[in-house]
């Protein structure tokens, strides 16, 4: 199962300890405790913006598809690897809210 399809009760939210800068169409993220700077662009920036409040992956897909007038499968395909990557790097937290 993909991250964006997600389990029913799984939400993503921005981690607290992330420092950010927006440059042109890109975004730089630096997670405290992680030496590596991350640059996201395109769908990654749209995803980050959509997570100004915690959302499920499916909600992100619906929101971005509506905002950009793109079908949900295309959005899911674009953001799924980014969601997984940002969770792995500590910039996003994945939370199971059904427990």
């Amino acid at each position: 199962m993909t991250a964006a399809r997600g389990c029913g009760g799984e939400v993503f939210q921005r981690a607290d300890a992330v420092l950010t800068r927006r440059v042109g169409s890109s975004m730089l993220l630096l997670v405290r405790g992680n030496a590596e700077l991350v640059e996201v662009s395109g769908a990654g920036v749209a995803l980050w913006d959509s997570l100004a409040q915690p959302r499920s992956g499916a909600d992100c897909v619906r929101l971005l598809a509506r905002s950009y007038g793109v079908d949900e499968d295309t959005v899911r395909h674009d953001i799924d690897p980014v969601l997984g990557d940002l969770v792995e790097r500590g910039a996003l937290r994945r939370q199971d809210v059904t427990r």
Partner: protein
Amino acid sequence: MTVTSAAPSPASVASLGLAGTEHSVPGAPVADTDWVAFRSTVRAGRLTGVLLAAVDAGAFPVTDDQRAGLVQDHLAAMSGALVLERMLLEVADAFDDRAIELRAIKGTAVAHLDYPAPEQRAYGDVDVLVRSEQIDDATRALADLGLTRAFQPPRPGWDARYGKGAMFRATDGSEVDLHRTFATPPMGLRIRLDDLWTSSQPLELGGRVVLALDRELRLLNACYSAAVADTEPALATLRDIAQLALHDDLDSTRVTELAYRWGGRAVLASAVRSTWTRLRIGDVTALSAWAERYRPSEVEVRELALYQQVRASETARALATAAMLPTLGSRAAYLWSLARPDAAFSRASRRTPWQRATRAARDLRRARRSP
């Protein structure tokens, strides 16, 4: 035929997006032959943020290639800013553990609190203010974080009594400037340090709150940086002054009163006048009108010259500092510390006591010859 423009001045770039500026912007992209040098000047002046904001607002025409190069420069500047912010948070945590009070000052603070977006202000180091009585503890805390002090003080206790602060470097090249006041002596000694701690403004970075100076103190800090830290004020600092001085909520009466208490009215007037002149700000505010009217005394003019003239000497500043110390004993102790510093300071400055004495004598002869 492609229409191009000559490169605008750096001061014109520093004023982009500023309400009331009378600087004009080019009507067409800068010619490629001028662009390389222009881009380098913008980068060195830490002005990539204001320029890119103007470009993206359609207020400064560029070619696609020029914009791509500017974005690359700004990505590098902002990557540096994030690394410095992370360093600031490490310093804040370390100081918290030791109950050392801290205020974020200069670049980080003004970027987040005084610009429409922090992306518009690039900076090259972390600047923090601590209380005089805690500067030695702060120095030890920075050393425990693995930072190395760039220059040793002439004598133990110097930092807390006379110094402006100390510079530290991390292994990754990041620089942390530890301050206890806004300027080197003699001006720095007249600033009433308790005034710097009466209020603050919170700044949220990466989920953590760090305290910064309040708006009026940030403005005064920027004015001291512009007027007495460098012989030529940095344009980014003048832009900071404009951002702060043009803010609707600035209490300009408090600013001038604090400057009066610190014997710093000439500093404030000089910095505000420089900002209005170089950034060609047409708007008149209570503070800019005051700065225009202010006439410094002869003593103030001489003191400012100690900092602003290229040939101003360390010896002249040291003598001016000694003259303002309260007792003969304290004057003698101050001058003795400079004349006979600890070995570590002498090694760092690469001068023996004899060389320091002969240099002082040469400086004095030069000062007497100057008009």
